[in-house]
């Protein structure tokens, strides 16, 4: 997976100065996180559903080979074809070959994070296939040549004025000469433009939220209805998805339907939840004749049995993004990966390289909100810590930091030296030129790294140990 996560630090600085983005992030946290809180409060069984969901996924991961086999057998029994891709290159080539085998010129696509992961659309376009994103947010960022900044709301970083500019620029050639800024009118214009694309498409490409092994069914969740038109109108439907999306039965997938929309935005269910099983049947008035499922590994199988297996439970609901103080301060693009936020910080080093994405695991206060809201109970802070450990083991962090941590660890184990240094620092800081508000704004040398971004409260009394003894505390 291509990433620009190496630039995380300059990208965050730019993001913090971007007023448009900051306003958008405020809206995001106000609407999605608050919506989730209200939605969860309505369902007393929510925590039990999370336990069920975690256990189902863990059971599947322990039997993943067999469930994949069962799923593939069912797809083929229904007349579909299953293709296996070990990496991005293989997956893209399979999709291109399938499009070319039916002489496709025009492709519509519904929203899918896996196709973002493998950068599918630019690849198909470079081979002469007109490929149109049909989810409104994805369509907007496709016109702008951008990447998604959120896994559920890909254009959340944009204002309606920016959308208006983009539509005016691209739709003028289709006869839309008026610049509109009303949200409803923008949605209506996109509906008209994209309706023509839906009806003309030769191939429809979708992802899958879940794969049901029992029946060979793929499950798609949308609010717009674009996945339904993408999959029902063209003569060929290609599904591109990850091998970890399997659930055993229709009863099991029902548990996930109950928690997915609720975790994302607080709704009990999305407007459309589609269960698609194979190609058009005899007698059906519509539907595609050809049905293909491309199952992508891309590093997922390597995660089994290791430190990051828990991450394979992720259902891409975005609750961890919507509750992360870091994501909500810098937005998705700063992460330099199509998977941002806490889930992205864990997944990106696995799908790209740790060297390229080592900043991401460190961009967390480990406050734990992500784990608290995760519908499949992924211990995200623990997984972030594991990446930090690996970064240190592989000596990818700066030498000064490694030695600094070693020194800190040594001090922590040598109480007398630690106390002497604490007393010395306390004495120096107490005598520092006093500021009116009791804070020190600037310290010299190494200590200046602390005061560059924060103020330090000036001590008025002794160290903690000194005060503890003075108050009559005993050594324990």
């Amino acid at each position, binding site marked *: 997976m291509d990433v620009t996560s190496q630039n995380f630090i300059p990208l965050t600085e730019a993001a913090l100065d971007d007023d448009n983005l900051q306003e958008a992030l405020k809206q995001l946290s106000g609407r999605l996180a608050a919506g989730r809180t209200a939605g969860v409060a309505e369902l007393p069984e929510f925590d039990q559903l999370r336990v069920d969901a975690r256990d189902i996924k863990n059971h599947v991961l322990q039997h993943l080979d067999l469930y994949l086999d069962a799923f593939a057998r069912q797809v083929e029994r229904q007349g579909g074809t299953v293709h296996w891709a070990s990496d991005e290159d293989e997956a893209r080539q399979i999709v291109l070959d399938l499009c070319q085998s039916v002489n496709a010129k025009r492709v519509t696509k519904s929203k899918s994070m896996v196709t973002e992961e493998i950068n599918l659309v630019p690849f198909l376009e470079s081979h002469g296939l007109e490929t149109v994103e049909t989810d409104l947010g994805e369509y907007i960022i496709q016109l702008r040549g951008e990447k998604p900044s959120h896994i559920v709301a890909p254009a959340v970083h944009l204002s309606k004025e920016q959308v208006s500019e983009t539509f005016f620029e691209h739709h003028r050639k289709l006869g839309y000469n008026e610049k509109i800024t009303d949200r409803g009118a923008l949605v209506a214009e996109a509906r008209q433009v994209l309706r023509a694309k839906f009806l003309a498409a030769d191939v429809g490409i979708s992802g899958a939220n879940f794969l049901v092994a029992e029946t060979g069914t793929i499950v798609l969740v949308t609010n717009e209805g674009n996945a339904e038109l993408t999959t029902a109108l063209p003569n060929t439907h290609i599904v591109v998805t990850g091998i970890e999306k399997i659930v055993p*039965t229709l009863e099991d997938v029902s548990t996930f339907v109950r928690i997915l929309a609720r975790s994302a935005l607080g709704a009990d269910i999305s407007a459309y939840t589609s269960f698609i099983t194979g190609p058009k049947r005899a007698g059906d008035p519509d539907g595609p004749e050809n049905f293909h499922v491309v199952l992508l590994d891309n590093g997922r199988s390597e*995660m089994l049995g290791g430190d990051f297996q828990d991450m394979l439970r992720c259902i891409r609901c975005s609750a961890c993004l919507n509750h992360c103080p870091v994501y909500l301060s810098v937005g998705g693009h700063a992460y330099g990966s199509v998977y941002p936020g806490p889930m992205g910080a864990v997944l990106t080093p696995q799908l790209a390289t740790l060297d390229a994405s080592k900043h991401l695991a460190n961009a967390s206060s480990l406050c734990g909100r992500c784990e608290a809201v995760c519908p499949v109970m992924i211990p995200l802070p623990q997984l972030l810590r594991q990446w930090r450990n690996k970064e240190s083991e592989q000596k990818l962090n700066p030498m000064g930091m490694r030695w600094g941590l070693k020194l800190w660890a040594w001090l922590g184990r040598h109480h007398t030296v630690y106390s002497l240094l604490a007393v010395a620092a306390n004495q120096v800081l107490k005598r520092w030129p006093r500021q009116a508000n009791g804070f020190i704004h600037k310290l010299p040398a190494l200590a200046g790294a602390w005061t560059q971004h924060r103020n330090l409260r000036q001590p008025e009394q002794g160290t903690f140990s000194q005060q503890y003894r003075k108050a009559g505390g005993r050594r324990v």
Partner: protein
Amino acid sequence: MTKQSIMATIRQRLGVAGDDQTRQQTIDSRMALHAKNTRPAIGVLDGAARLDQFACSAKRKGASVTQVNDIAAATAVILATLPAGSRLCLTSAASATGIELPVELIEVWNPKTSLENSLSTCFCGVAETGSLVVRSDAGNSITQNFLADRHFVLLPELDILDSMESVWSRVREQGGMPRDLTLVSGPSSTGDIEMRMETGAHGPRELHILILGGYG
């Protein structure tokens, strides 16, 4: 080749053998049992409470819900809702219900041009979420549920099931999954511009549910 290598990695990482019969039996029996997981209290309602849950939940999502006694009353509601000069496409299953509409109001279905109104039947309703279950079959063009601006759906009261789990039992009794089975929960909507919900993204802007009492 790729399949074998992915499978080999999975088995090696899990430390299992591919021909382990115990593991195969574990998954086969799980898939055969169809055991239900936790169902919320709102997913196991009966009688009037179930009907109430369906209607409240569907209305909350922006659908209109009208209870009628018979097809004639349903027709009256449709005629009162259709804007003047507007025509309606019926799925063949909807025509087969015996609904009688003035012939000048009927439009022959064509996905490229039929944009206004559509009338269809559904497989069943789900009370827990106020959802309609529509499906592709010989009598129902699935796209007729997604393309029109205004979608009318006939739902016999007795076909309102408590939860998704009951839908799956009915699907299995009736020959298994169709190509497309979709839970429609309210009109089409999007929150992709500034996180504000707008209706009518790609599918119907209006969803009108007509519950036929004592029918079915």
